[in-house]
């Protein structure tokens, strides 16, 4: 099903990404030593300590040697050692990843499903009061950046009403376990998920609605209607399914940005995710972490791309005949 040519394309893309991934952080101004130790007045940066750090971070090696070492380590499944966190990159990222996945997964699922359902309903009833209200409401929500919605929600429900926690992914050292712990995690998850969902709901809603309107004019819709199918079948199986292609693409693109897309929301809610990690790593010029995160992003984009390629023919068999 997958041609040799597209496999080669993926491999070339992957290698190019690895190269860029290695070079880009090193082209930024500033070096890790000054970034981590530079503006700290308390550090006793003796020439000896500096020499040891340079050696430890392998900053004294020429670029091509660093690159070689990076590739060798990569094929052994090692992502390197973080300068700032003083820990293996993989373990630093893996510690954060479940939280980001939880946050992004939940909000992506909610915003996509809600968006599709609302889009179908809205498109079906184009011009009605429901349609106009939804369109105006979701369009304006779509205009807000996610972190801004996050701050509004946090101030309203966290600070003023005090019904949701102010920071973090759980209450540290609360001694909770089992169901109580799960509830605690969900309570912390609610506001950031709400912010992300509301901010991104508009995208999938608008896409579905637009396609829905076009699809409704297709001759097969008339045929289906003539067959006497129920409204639910018409709406969801015939029109709805055909309106989903652009949304699937959008969702895919969004998934590729899983890590970086939540950065601001993670900052607002002090949520322990990969986005916040990226931000810190950029500030500290922690090359190994930056490389590790970007590699993960690149891989997820490639994988998602691949999955979308696979899912298209299932959603719309005509895609298979396109070549």
């Amino acid at each position, binding site marked *: 099903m997958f041609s040799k040519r597209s496999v080669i394309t993926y491999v070339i893309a992957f290698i190019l990404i690895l190269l860029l991934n290695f070079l880009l952080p090193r082209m930024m101004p*500033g070096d890790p030593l000054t970034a981590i130790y530079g503006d700290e007045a308390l550090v*006793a*940066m003796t020439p000896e300590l500096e020499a040891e750090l340079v050696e430890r971070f392998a900053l004294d090696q020429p670029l091509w040697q660093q690159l070689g070492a990076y590739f060798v380590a990569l094929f052994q499944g090692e992502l390197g050692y973080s300068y*700032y*966190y003083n*820990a293996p990159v993989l373990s630093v990222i893996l510690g*954060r990843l*479940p939280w980001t996945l939880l946050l992004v997964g939940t909000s992506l699922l909610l915003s996509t499903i809600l968006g599709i359902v609302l889009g179908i309903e809205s498109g079906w009833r184009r011009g009605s009061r429901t349609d106009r209200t939804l369109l105006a409401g979701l369009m304006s929500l779509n205009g807000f950046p996610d972190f801004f919605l996050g701050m509004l929600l946090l101030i309203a429900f966290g600070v003023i009403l005090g019904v949701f926690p102010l920071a973090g*992914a759980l209450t540290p050292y609360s001694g909770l376990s089992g169901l109580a712990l799960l509830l605690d995690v969900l309570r912390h998850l609610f506001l950031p998920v709400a912010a992300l969902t509301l901010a991104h709901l508009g995208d999938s809603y608008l896409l579905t609605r637009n396609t829905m309107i076009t699809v409704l004019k297709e001759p097969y819709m008339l045929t289906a209607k003539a067959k006497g199918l129920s409204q639910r079948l018409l709406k969801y199986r015939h029109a709805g399914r055909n309106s989903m292609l652009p949304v699937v693409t959008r969702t895919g693109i969004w998934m590729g940005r899983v890590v970086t897309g939540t950065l601001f929301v993670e900052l607002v*809610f002090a949520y322990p995710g990969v986005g916040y990690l990226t931000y810190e790593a950029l500030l500290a010029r922690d090359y190994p972490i930056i490389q590790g995160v970007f590699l993960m992003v690149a891989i997820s984009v490639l994988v998602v791309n691949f999955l979308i390629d696979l899912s298209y023919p299932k959603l719309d068999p005509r895609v298979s005949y396109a070549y």
Partner: protein
Amino acid sequence: MQKLLIPAVIVVALLAFPSCTAETPEISSYTIADSTGDWGYPSPYTHYSRGPGYTRMSFIFETLVWKDASSFIPQLAEEWEYIAEENAYIFELRDDVSWHDGTQFTADDVVFTFDYTQQHPYQLVDNSIVEVAEAIDEYTVKLYLTRPYAPFLQDVAGTQPIMPRHIWEGIEEPEKFAAPEAVIGTGPYTLADYSKEHGSYLYKACEDYYLGTPVVDEIKFVRVSAEMIPAALKEGSISAGDIPPEVVSEMEEAGLTIITAPVAWNAKLTINHHRDPLSSRQFRQALAYAIDREALVQITQRGHALAGSPGMIPPTSDWYNPDTPQYEYDPAKAIRLLEELGYGLEDGYFIRDGEVLELELLATADFKEVGQFIMQQLEEAGIKIDFRTLEAKTVDAKVEAWDFDLAIYGHGGLYEPSILKRVIMDEGFNSARYTSNETLNQLLQAQLTEMDSEKRKDLVFQIQEVYAQDLPALTLYYPKWYWAHDGNVNLFYTMDGIASGVPIPLNRMTFVE
């Protein structure tokens, strides 16, 4: 999916040491918040090289001497003395101290620590100061210095965490040593949990601590975003945290206790004194007269700062020289000085040899308001300013390569005058790297080795005068920092900062008595 996550949430609990479980605490739990959270595993080689990292480590590891709000106090050493003729310090150690695993603490551990740092420098202590450590008997240690070093108690004896030989001997890569044994110290607390991703720490009181059971049973450090710390304090979910100056009165009304640190940090106008026309001392003085530092504090810092002294040492410090030239705001004088240098005003700007006097001013976004204020004032004085905000590391790199005219910068460490040499003479982007005044060079060197504190004070006074005359950089202001807490324990700022100068009110002794 959530169910799968729960195991990931529960971070590996560390070994609890049987000798350290408190029974009757006065306060069961105390929660401290900060916006970064993770400061590294609280062991000497794995905590991050910043003040908060050191602070977290200092609840577990102790030093030979320590400080309270006003003076040096005994810690692992009961008494100490400087022997000038041998250039050595002799320390009489306590004999009732044991490590958290029950092993007795002796002079051997101190000797080991200083030997170990010779191969593995500890990031906050200059390991070239102590030449050799020698155990005189089981509880007496003598440290021979390589050169007289005035701030020895502050920077070495009061900062170097003492580590147990029986654990660290044979550890080749201490920066990767993050086992439970790596947090065995002699301090009042042991680490019960640390989570890197949540940025949280849990400490348990050590019941048989040699100075008595700590008053707080559990100390928690949690991560809360800076904007939410005031709300969390009001709500009572945290006990203490740093707050922005704007909410001080609101916090007081809410019944919280506010404390403010003696200023420790300064924002500076860094001047490229290698480049014409900034290489002229008179030109730099004209800049100082053209900037109203009092107005700068009122406008850009909304009054929550002290105006800078051109001698860098803040007026609140014991080391401050009141005779330092101050360059009171005087734009007319600035114009006169520039005219003397051959500049003529034309259409509001100074011109010399047909060229408009134009300078580039660099700053990070954090200093945007300060930069705009300075630009406005210098423009009023007839100097055209090209103000650019750049990302921090780009500014660092440009300043380090001398590729700038003016830049706004900041650094801390103002408690101890040894900072003067580092930020005036030494290499590094936050140093003025000014070495062309031989008198200043000698004074900076001399104050570091003068063991007599009165004589040293005199040298530091002279430095401020010379430095303020030459102006290789101009201190603009010292921001004020505030902490709010619930008053359950009496938080205080340590004299000259914790250890070598950490301006955070989390001295472990607060939690002991």
